[in-house]
């Protein structure tokens, strides 16, 4: 720049000759040139894009997360049996025949909260329930022997509370020497059911309307006035109880429904939509058509914790001290009335 001031001045002098007095015109001319060039460049970018037929972009409304996302019911809370008027002590026997122990955790904990001991999978059922107040049976693979059935029936007749969690038949993947295979598994509750005039269906119930994120995760509710204890108890607060691939439970006697589905539920392989009874109570016996919902990751979905609180209240509010036959007579008629009497008789003891 500064090396050759002479050249600069010469250039100024020569251009000064030709463009003298036209600096303004030159500047305007250059401006016009630049503006024109820019306009052409922009035009070159815009015009073809206007001419090019870009594919219309549909809005994929049916994929809108607001329409599609399913989250299921909230799972919070714990099983809080109430009222804690439970007499001190007592034992609940749980016969789960080696079922996943984690499945039983929340229920066992709640029974402990209700001041009762839990005895798992006794070697000899007859003697175990002899000293117990209640018996929980979870999804048995094999039916009980005649002796065991006699003992369980007598136990219930004496006022001992019996809760049965069953399942529909289902196919399970089993690994073997020749690779994985499907085996059908059934809750064998035929003998036990017969003793209490109960029938567990073998097919599952599904509901495409009221469910927890899947048609087989059925939402059920206790009918009005359903009761497991004195008054409504915790069951009265359970509005959305989710059972996971449940089966229907029916009674050939006059058991009372405790959990009923919505009117759109169906039994697998049937097109008939109707209310299905998923739990019934007949005196000292409560039968529920699902054993999965008590598991550690299911027990507090929706109002399951409220329902299970009701189950625990039912378990610990029996009246086994009334003596053989007495409980049966008292429980035989109206449910809530019978229980009230039973609890009333128990309290002073």
């Amino acid at each position, binding site marked *: 720049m500064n090396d050759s001031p002479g050249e600069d001045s010469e250039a100024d002098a020569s251009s000064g000759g030709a463009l003298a007095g036209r600096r303004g015109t030159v500047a305007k001319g250059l401006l016009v040139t630049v503006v024109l060039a820019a306009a052409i460049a922009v035009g070159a970018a815009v015009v073809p894009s206007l001419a090019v037929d870009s594919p219309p972009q*549909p809005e994929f409304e049916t*994929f809108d997360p607001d329409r599609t996302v399913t989250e299921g019911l909230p799972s919070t809370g714990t099983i809080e049996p109430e009222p804690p008027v439970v007499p001190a002590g007592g034992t609940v026997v749980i016969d789960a025949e080696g079922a996943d122990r984690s499945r039983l955790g929340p229920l066992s904990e709640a029974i402990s909260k209700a001041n009762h001991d839990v005895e798992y999978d006794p070697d000899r059922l007859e003697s175990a329930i002899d000293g117990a107040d209640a018996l929980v049976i979870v999804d048995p693979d094999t039916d009980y022997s005649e002796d065991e059935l006699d003992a369980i029936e007598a136990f219930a007749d004496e006022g001992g509370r019996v809760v049965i969690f069953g399942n529909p038949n289902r196919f399970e993947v089993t690994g073997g020497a020749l690779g994985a295979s499907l085996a059908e598994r059934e809750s064998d509750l035929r003998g036990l059911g017969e003793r209490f005039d109960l029938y567990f269906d073998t097919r599952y119930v599904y509901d495409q309307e009221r469910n927890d994120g899947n048609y087989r*995760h059925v939402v059920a509710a206790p009918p009005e006035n359903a009761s497991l204890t004195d008054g409504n108890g915790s069951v009265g607060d359970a509005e959305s109880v989710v059972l996971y691939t449940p089966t229907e439970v029916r009674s050939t006697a006059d058991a009372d429904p405790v959990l009923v589905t919505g009117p759109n539920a169906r039994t697998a392989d049937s097109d008939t939509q109707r209310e299905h009874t998923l739990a019934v109570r007949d005196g000292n016996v409560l039968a529920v058509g699902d054993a999965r919902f008590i598991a550690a*990751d299911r027990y507090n979905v929706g109002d399951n914790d409220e329902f299970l609180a009701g189950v625990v209240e039912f378990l610990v509010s029996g009246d086994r001290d009334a003596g053989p036959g007495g409980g049966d007579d008292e429980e035989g008629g109206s449910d809530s009335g019978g229980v009230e009497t039973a609890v009333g008789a128990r309290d002073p003891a």
Partner: protein
Amino acid sequence: MMFERTRSALAWAVDSYVLFVLLGVLLGAAVAPVAVDTATGPDGTVAVVPIQGTIDGELSTEYQAMLAEARAEADAVVIVANSGGGSAAASEAMYMQTLRLRESMPVVATVDGVAASGAYFAIAPADEVYVKPSSFVGSVGVIGSLPPDVEPNDVVGTTGPRKVEGFGDREFFATLETSRNAFVGSVVEHRGDRLGLTENEVATARVFGGSVAVENGMADAIGDRRAAIRAAADRAGLDRPSVEVITPADVGGGDWTATYALRAAYYAGGADEKRFEPIRTANTPRQGSFPTVLMAHPGAVAAGDATLVTLDSRGAVEVATAGDERSVGGTGSGADAGANATDENATDAGRIDAAGVFG
């Protein structure tokens, strides 16, 4: 003299109009074929695009390319579906592509044997669906394997409690349900008033025979490919459409030749530059959407090494030493190709085969 004669003949030709008649005939004869073409030639194009086989990422990509070509060249599109479905995400992508195409031109689907699940999803936005009495449509739903309950274990270490399973059980079902809602919702929306089934009936994921599907609105009419082409042409206002069949090979899905060395030759080769060349194989069974990676040796390829195997888009294998063509129908043929190369390479070809080269 000659000049005067010519001049008088020209004058006569002009005066008597013979010249003009002659010129007129010549001109007319020259234009006539164009006129014939204009009157009887095609007034537009209907493209035929197949959905054939299990739906995966690769098929979805081919479908996209085929539709892009159809969009550029045709006035209407007929989709010929013959697939039982496949990957959910790939099916959703195909649905979106079909819907996008339908925004710009008529789309008519025809079902060859079956358009179930993801394949039915892909044709759901079509203006019309043609079926045959023995076609099957439906299976509107999603299926997935429950996440394995294997955490923690003594074999694999992970950085998070869901690294192995991905989901908890309930989360998995909720995700499945979300996919179901997108699928069922799309079918119900696009079939609209034509559908005689409730949303829940569709969601049972039943499969319907063609005639039943026409009755309940899962399909529109009984008809074959020709009927679908006619319907597509009518919708596009074409009287004499030309029909162009687009296949995966037209969009780069085929029509190539790859030459590669057997592994033993590769290792034994003295070339300075050894490198891996990924290529795609056409007729091998699809194994996900990953490219099949072969080892090729540029130096050996250039030298026409006798141990080279040439594979082309028709699935033919040519082994340089044997010089005959063999079909690559499956793993067995792959092993054959190796066995034909040299005895020493037989075992090695088996290893390539096991590594998935031939699928």
